[in-house]
């Protein structure tokens, strides 16, 4: 079958999927079609902490999955970081050209290879206002990537993630995942992200320093964090703030 026709068929199947198991079976079949062995569809959050709320569907061998969980790679995985700098799918072998890799990243990748994780292809998925995610296809070390099929992998990743969003939202993911800030709290967090202190923020917004401190404290409480650095990062991460908000002139 032509690749485009296969993409259309896959879109139909995953849109009709009634539960995660059906979606998983469709992804499994597509993974083989693409010449890969494994898939992982996931939100980029600490999966052990987020539990049921976050999208997570994979057929990685249990040794790979344990390894990812133990490393808490949901957040620090270089593959996930690379997928935050592009909207297009990429092969893992391209990563050193996409993001700066630290010594620890290189160690993580080397450890992965020791677990038998070979090259893979990751489709980044970003829906504004929600945690970022991705759909990855991977094989054991030593198995080459079937490059001509990657455009199909790209479309499959996009449609699979959307199907997962639909299925997981029934579990109330969006409600649980993003704490809601008030407009005033968000304004304060925005100015914190721009490097301003409480007194300055108070002058900018026309309120007292104490009021600013209270807004920020309450915003911290909503995210369950105690430091304002973490607060700005969480707000950026879930789309309450965007980088454009912060750097806008």
């Amino acid at each position, binding site marked *: 079958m032509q*690749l485009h026709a296969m993409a*259309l068929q896959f879109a139909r199947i995953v849109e009709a999927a009634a539960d995660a198991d059906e979606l998983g079976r469709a992804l499994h079949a597509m993974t083989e079609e693409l010449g890969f062995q494994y898939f992982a569809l996931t939100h980029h959050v600490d999966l052990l902490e987020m539990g049921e709320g976050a999208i997570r569907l994979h057929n990685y061998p249990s040794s790979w999955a344990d390894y990812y969980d133990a490393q808490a790679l949901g957040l620090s995985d270089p593959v996930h970081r690379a997928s935050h700098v592009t*909207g*297009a799918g990429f092969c893992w072998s391209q990563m050193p050209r996409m993001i700066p890799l630290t010594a620890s990243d290189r160690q993580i990748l080397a450890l992965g290879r020791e677990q038998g994780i070979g090259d893979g292809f990751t489709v980044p998925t970003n829906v504004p206002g929600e945690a970022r995610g991705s759909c990855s296809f991977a094989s054991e070390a030593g198995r080459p990537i079937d490059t001509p099929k990657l455009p199909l992998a*790209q479309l499959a990743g*996009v449609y699979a993630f959307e199907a997962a969003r639909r299925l997981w939202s029934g579990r109330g993911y969006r409600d649980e995942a993003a704490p809601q800030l008030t407009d005033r709290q968000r304004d304060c967090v925005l100015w914190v992200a721009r490097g301003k202190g409480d007194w300055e923020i108070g002058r900018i917004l026309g309120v007292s320093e104490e009021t600013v401190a209270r807004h920020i404290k309450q915003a911290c409480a909503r995210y369950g964090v105690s430091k304002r650095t973490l607060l700005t990062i969480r707000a950026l991460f879930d789309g309450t703030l965007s980088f454009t908000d912060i750097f806008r002139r």
Partner: protein
Amino acid sequence: MLHILQAGDASASERVLQAMFAARKSVFVDLLKWNVPVVAGTYEIDRFDDSDAMYLVLTDAEGNHLGSARLLRTDRPHILGGFYPELCAGSVPSGPNVREVTRFCLDRRLKATDRRAVRDTLVCALADHALEHDIDTYSAIAQMGWFQQILAFGWRCRPLGLPQHRDGALLAALRIDIDEQTPALLRAAGLVPKAGLPAGDLRAAA
């Protein structure tokens, strides 16, 4: 406030169109670095901005631009058919009931939450416009990140071909089928027109 306009409409809408062309310059030229013509250093206007183009423009109460989209007829020259036909595996969708959505533009001055409100309102307006004007298909070209968002709106959206690297980006052509179920599909995905669009604070924010 939603304005549905054609180029050369009465002078009252001239200001709305001008603000839209300026906002398009800010987004597509300054931010996204598209290589498209700029008129008088201020307005992004190309050859398709002629009297056959239709615009959906959202403004605040004072007429400041919030978001906009351009609809091109497909029974005459348009972008997908003229420049990117190879993005379609089959024939390029065209005909009196098909419009190409181009220059979907959210004002850069909007904060993240307002952007989503404006985006949702504009998408719902596109669906309503199609239903009111016998349009059953929208075609569009999108980078993959934007493709994911368009799909997340919940309406029926299909790739017209495989994504391809063009002009330094991974582009895909897509079709959106509009029928009487579309508004319900959008609602189910959480897209509803937002009454409380930001009003009057754009200048202060800019």
